[in-house]
């Protein structure tokens, strides 16, 4: 029997290690600006990456390198105001070329490390080879130390919870062996905590003091505090007299439960949506495991020797509670797995899903063995405990294997978080119109609608029937009335479906309000439908400076290391003055002869401009009557050589 149990344990441990997939890690990049593989017409002032989990800012970094490896990021990686999932780094003025963005994050939620890289081009498209060469994201296979640390922690805490239940509730008098089992559990949990601490310190790659100043360090402190509390209660339970010892045994179980809660707060359950609910379910899951598996270990230890009445009572009490524990473990486990895996096709196609299935198989085997005990050996507990012990020993080995699988799962990215979320959708500019003769309806879509490269999609349908217009030649004509020096251009679109025509081009070459003519030419006739398209303002880095008693100053970083400072005074509902000051790279006033300031919609479309006065070189003020709440304004300065400097920002009116 012992040999069978040993072989089974070896097989299960080996299987868990073999199944262990590489960790996709958790704070994985979901989107970025510039986007991976994209080409931008103008050098961005900063690179921003949005991750799937909140990265610990002080332990994470973004690096921008050119093709020859020269570093172009400056000023260090910082968080983004209003988006805790994003990191940003300023970049020097980027000349034309291809750039590689490398990132490394430490998740503030589960402390795991993730790395990745991608390429983008300024005025030149990154080649497929360059993109493929650097496009990577993930993390190494979870380290043996990390998995071993968690396993030890789980084994220890489950034992503590189970022993506290058996010692405090199943027996009238706490057996001495259960107290020693509590001590053994504490020892394992402490060792596990030490290993986890060392692993996280190594992953962070910073000093201890710096680590403990971060959210990752704070979670470590909570974890260590819970183990400290367990140490105190257990010391009492071990050292005090029998009468005083009795209440400290369940107290140790509570301390063990708190330590499990600290671990849950650093697990996958703390990430994603509905974290509080998911953490509650996860805690219920691990506590039920503690009562069921840990309780079984304690029961086997406490019922050694010949059968006796008090042992039979304890066995029956445990059997009743273990049934409930199994049901809770199963229900909460299925729920948590469904949340983390997310899709059926990921159950067998991902390492995480395979580990979950292995765990389900082990739990099912445990349930079968538990049923055998419940209906065969528990009724015979008054006369013999031999069968219960034999089956129970196998159950304990399977339970330890299930915990090893759980320890591995914690170090692997679940498919739900590893799956890149769809990039924040930038709604394209969409306009609809028809020709004067009312023969054709046109829907023009410009994506992303910024100055530079865009995808133009035209849907042409019959005005009355709505039938798609096929086999037409569709051409777009572009003019910028406010800038006659910018030449007119055309773009031929290609068929891309029934009545759909599509093409890519940089015809909207600069910011402004463009006149776009859509020509739909068929075999015998043609129509022309005019549209007006105002390009969106590209995302800019905006620094916010708040000082008591002074207006909040917003500094937008423009191309060419130029900036514009904007503030609204007094910033209260009613009449306000909106000040705009352009500043050159040498920190002197930038001569911007003309500025248009207007309220803007969420999409950036301008409304009626405000009245603007020029106060000084590059300094303008607009009279703004505002309501309480957010005020979105579009500020477009025009330099002496006709370059337009658009800025879109949201001010808070109180």
């Amino acid at each position, binding site marked *: 029997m012992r040999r069978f149990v040993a072989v089974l344990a070896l097989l299960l441990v080996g299987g868990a290690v073999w199944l262990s997939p590489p960790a996709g890690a958790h704070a994985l990049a979901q989107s970025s600006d510039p986007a991976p593989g994209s080409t931008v017409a103008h050098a961005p002032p900063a690179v921003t990456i949005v991750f799937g989990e909140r990265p610990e800012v002080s332990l994470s970094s973004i690096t921008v390198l050119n093709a020859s490896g020269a570093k172009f990021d400056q000023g260090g990686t910082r968080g983004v105001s209003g988006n805790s999932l994003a990191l940003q780094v300023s970049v020097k003025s980027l000349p034309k070329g291809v750039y590689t963005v490398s990132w490394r994050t430490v998740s503030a939620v589960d402390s795991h490390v993730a790395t990745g890289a991608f390429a983008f081009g300024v005025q030149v498209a990154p080649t497929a080879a360059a993109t493929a060469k650097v496009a990577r994201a993930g993390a190494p296979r979870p380290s043996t130390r990390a998995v071993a640390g968690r396993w030890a922690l789980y084994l220890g805490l489950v034992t503590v919870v189970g022993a506290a239940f058996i010692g405090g509730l199943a027996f009238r008098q706490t057996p001495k062996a259960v107290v020693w089992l509590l001590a053994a559990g504490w020892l394992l949990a402490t060792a596990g905590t030490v290993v986890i601490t060392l692993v996280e310190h190594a992953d962070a790659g910073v000093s201890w003091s710096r680590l403990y100043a971060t959210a990752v360090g704070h979670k470590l402190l909570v974890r260590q505090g819970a183990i400290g509390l367990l140490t105190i209660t257990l010391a009492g339970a071990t050292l005090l007299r029998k009468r005083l010892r009795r209440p400290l045994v369940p107290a140790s179980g509570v301390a063990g439960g708190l330590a499990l809660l600290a671990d849950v707060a650093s697990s996958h359950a703390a990430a994603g949506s509905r974290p509080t609910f998911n953490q509650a379910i996860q805690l219920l899951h691990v506590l039920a495991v503690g009562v069921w598996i840990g309780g079984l270990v304690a029961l086997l230890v406490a019922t050694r020797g010949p059968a006796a009445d008090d042992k039979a009572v304890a066995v029956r009490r445990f059997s009743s509670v273990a049934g409930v524990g199994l049901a809770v473990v199963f229900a909460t486990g299925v729920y948590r797995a469904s949340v983390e895996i997310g899709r059926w096709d990921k159950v067998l196609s991902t390492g995480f899903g395979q580990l979950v299935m292995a765990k389900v198989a082990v739990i099912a085997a445990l349930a079968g063995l538990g049923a055998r005990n419940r209906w065969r050996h528990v009724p015979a507990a008054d006369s013999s405990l031999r069968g219960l012990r034999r089956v129970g020993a196998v159950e304990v080995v399977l339970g330890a294997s299930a915990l090893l699988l759980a320890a591995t799962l914690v170090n692997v990215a679940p498919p739900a978080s590893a799956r890149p979320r769809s990039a924040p959708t930038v709604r394209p500019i969409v306009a609809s119109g028809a*020709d*004067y*003769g*009312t*023969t054709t309806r046109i829907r023009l879509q410009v994506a992303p609608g910024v100055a530079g490269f865009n995808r133009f999609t035209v849907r042409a349908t019959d*005005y*009355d029937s709505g039938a798609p217009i096929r086999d037409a*030649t569709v*051409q777009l*004509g572009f*003019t910028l009335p406010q800038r006659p020096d910018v030449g007119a*251009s*055309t773009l031929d679109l290609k068929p891309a479906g029934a009545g759909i025509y599509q093409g890519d081009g940089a015809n909207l070459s600069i910011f402004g309000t463009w*006149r776009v*003519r859509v*020509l739909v*030419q*068929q*075999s*015998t*006739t*043609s*129509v*022309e439908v*005019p549209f007006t398209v105002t390009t969106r303002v590209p995302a800019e880095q905006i620094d916010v400076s708040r000082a008591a008693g002074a207006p909040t100053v917003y500094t937008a970083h423009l191309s060419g290391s130029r900036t514009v400072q904007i503030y609204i005074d007094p910033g209260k509902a009613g009449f306000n003055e909106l000040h705009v000051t352009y500043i050159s790279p040498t920190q002197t006033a930038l001569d911007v002869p003309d500025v248009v300031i207007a309220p803007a919609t969420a999409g950036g479309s301008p409304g009626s401009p405000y009245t603007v006065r020029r106060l000084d070189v590059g300094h303008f003020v607009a009279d703004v009557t505002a309501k309480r709440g957010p005020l979105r304004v579009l500020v477009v300065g025009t330099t002496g050589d006709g370059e337009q400097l658009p800025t879109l920002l949201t001010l808070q009116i109180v």
Partner: protein
Amino acid sequence: MSKFRARLLAAAGIAAVSVMGMATPAFAHEPREVGPFHVEVGWKNEPTYTNVQNAVDFFLNDANDKPITDLGDTLKVEVIFGSQKSDPMPFEAAGDAGTPGEYLATLTPTRPGVYMFHLTGTIHGQAFDQTFTSSDKTFDSPKDATEVEFPVKDPTNAELATKLDRTSTRLNAVNASAAKAAKKAKDDASMLAIIGIVVGAVGLVVGGIGMARGRRTT
């Protein structure tokens, strides 16, 4: 032609004439070396707007870039738009309206879009067969004149005609639908009347039978 339609077309005509006056001649032509000749083809007036009188503009020089002024009527041009092709049109020397070696074939483009000029015939006995297509890089594709109209952007004759046709079609469809509905209502009313008469007759018969039975029992 109805009075309303005539007025609309007249208004459009005035707009077209005013646009013609505003149009500034430009010189976007496609040059080619064809055998011993250097030719250039484009529109006489560019930017080119629809419904404004224009002409296919053809410059003919010899290999030494000396204008050839004695082309005669041996060369013709077909203007192609989509699947439509104009009759071959002869070139006439521009004379005082142009420069030596310049020939014109008068044409008013009526639809915006891509036009092709297919020149066929002979020049000084040498066969000539070339097609020139409007584009950004060659010569203008005519566009609607509305963008240069001021103060009111009037529709073109073609647009008005198209709109009238479309509107007429829709009105006819509405009328047909209304007539159909009226006929259906009339048929329904007739059917109801017949049903009413039948029900009334049945009532009379039933009443008569009832009265007859009542007398018999008394």
